[in-house]
């Protein structure tokens, strides 16, 4: 009796949210997978036939190999710089700054992350354009220097994306650094380990889950980014994301765009599948 009542409660509490997610996330993903095997865009009134052509063109046309390579490269750069810049911040916040200061600084670090991504990318155009802040500062020190010409370049895209995703890395590293018990570090120190050794052998390995989570959270959206490279990188295609956006919004070749989307997801999953055991082994080895 109570069981029937309980089952009804569970169903009526969860059904609305999950119906919503089904209609807006899961069915659309299924529809897109189906679409990726069609030979014509659904926008064309003629009936479409099943085909592998969209996937074949991903593997055979050099342009997609190039775009994939560029996307992965961009993902690696952005993730690497986010880690390089973000990890020390997370460390300082988790292990050195205490109390109200920590709370305030932590909030300041993640506040931009929860504000508008588009606006933050736009704000970099104000710094990087010729005659912008960076240009002015450089010419103040070196009046004879030529124009900066950094906006609409690859470095501009990397800078903008690092700015966008850095707080992810700080957040995840902070969480795992914070979980490390200070007494473990003290034990290593009292056994005579030097600071650098403690960091390399104890602190960093223990914070690796945060590093990995942050890297994944950054790498995946960077590969799929299109707005950031469009605004800061100009017109040249540098990511798969830009090409996918183009298939949907410019050339209206939905099936190709869908196939590219799934290839992008497949690449991400492949990297995770290959990378996870490697990292796992590394972590076990360090224990």
């Amino acid at each position, binding site marked *: 009796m109570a069981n029937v009542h309980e089952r009804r409660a569970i169903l009526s509490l*969860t059904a609305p949210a999950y119906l919503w997610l089904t209609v*807006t996330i899961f069915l*659309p993903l299924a529809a897109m997978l189906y679409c990726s095997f069609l030979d014509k865009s659904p926008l064309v009134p003629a009936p479409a036939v099943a085909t592998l052509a969209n996937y074949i063109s991903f593997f055979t046309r050099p342009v997609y190999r190039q775009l994939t390579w560029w996307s992965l490269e961009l993902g690696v750069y952005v993730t690497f710089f986010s880690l390089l810049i973000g990890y020390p911040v997370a460390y300082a916040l988790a292990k050195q700054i205490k109390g109200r200061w920590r709370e305030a600084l932590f909030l300041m670090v993640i506040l931009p992350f*929860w*504000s508008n991504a588009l606006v*933050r990318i736009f704000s970099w155009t104000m710094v990087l354009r010729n005659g912008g802040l960076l240009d002015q500062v450089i010419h103040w020190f070196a009046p004879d220097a030529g124009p900066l010409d950094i906006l609409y370049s690859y470095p501009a895209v990397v800078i903008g994306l690092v700015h966008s995703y850095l707080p992810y890395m700080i957040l995840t590293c902070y969480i795992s650094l914070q979980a490390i018990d200070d007494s473990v570090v003290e034990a290593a120190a009292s056994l005579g380990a030097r600071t650098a050794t403690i960091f390399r052998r104890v602190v960093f390995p223990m914070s690796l889950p945060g590093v990995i989570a942050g890297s994944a959270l950054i790498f*995946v959206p960077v590969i799929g980014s299109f*707005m950031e490279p469009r605004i800061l990188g100009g017109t040249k295609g540098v990511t798969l994301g830009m090409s996918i956006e183009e298939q949907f919004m410019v050339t209206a070749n939905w099936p190709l765009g869908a196939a590219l*989307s799934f290839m992008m997801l497949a690449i991400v999953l492949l990297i995770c599948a290959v990378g996870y055991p490697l990292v796992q082994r590394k972590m076990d080895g360090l224990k």
Partner: protein
Amino acid sequence: MSAAKTTSVSSFKIGPLVLRLHLVLVLLFLYVPIIVMAALSFNQSQLYELPFTFDLVWYKSLAGDSRLIDAGINSVVIAVINTVVATVLGTMAALAFARYQFRGKSLLQLLLFPPITIPWLVIGTAMLVFFFWTGIGRGLHAILLGHVALSLPYVIIVVGARLANFPRQMEEAAATLGATPWQTFWRVTAPILAPGVIAAALFAFAVSFDQFVISYFLAPPGVTTLPVAIYAAIRKGFTPEINAISTIIIVVSMGIMLITARFYRFGGER
């Protein structure tokens, strides 16, 4: 605290200083562009030329830009409806997860991750395809459908975190003392839950108000939300008017998150 601690701190003399300097530089990196952008929205020059001359001319011209104002109204209306719908549905689901043990629960919880981890580009284009096929089409209603989907996982996770350390004895005590389930809910459960729900609602508002990618794919020509309109304007060329509207947006969304921080501790307990 302990003796070992003080020795480890004193052996680390320049370390903390360098780290603190680094922290300051990172904060500059995060905030200088935003400050520069905001400052230039108050500068008179159309071409962002210096010297800086304070003027509200770009905010005044904003007030006469009916396209941006319409987009702003759309953004706020969608964000408000999204907040209400996502908060109610998400809180319900979080309650079910916290209160009941049932088969498929972990699967349902796992299903919250695709909407968060799959790039918005993929989700947005998938919605475009599916909504086209089913006749839902593009438009503000489609944008709202998409925003709620993105907000739901956040609401369920944030409210769920609050429910995880919920004192169940309070409810049992109320029931023992003769309160009806309805009374127990409104007098006991709701007040304890409130901070989590408010934080979740603010998150949901921010997710929707700042969402660009999904809206971009689901907005038909002529109908826009604020981020979509700003993107179109940026692609045409930079104007201080874009700085002005961007400044307003960044103040609103940072303000919302500052209020959220009062209810929700980012980064877990400390």
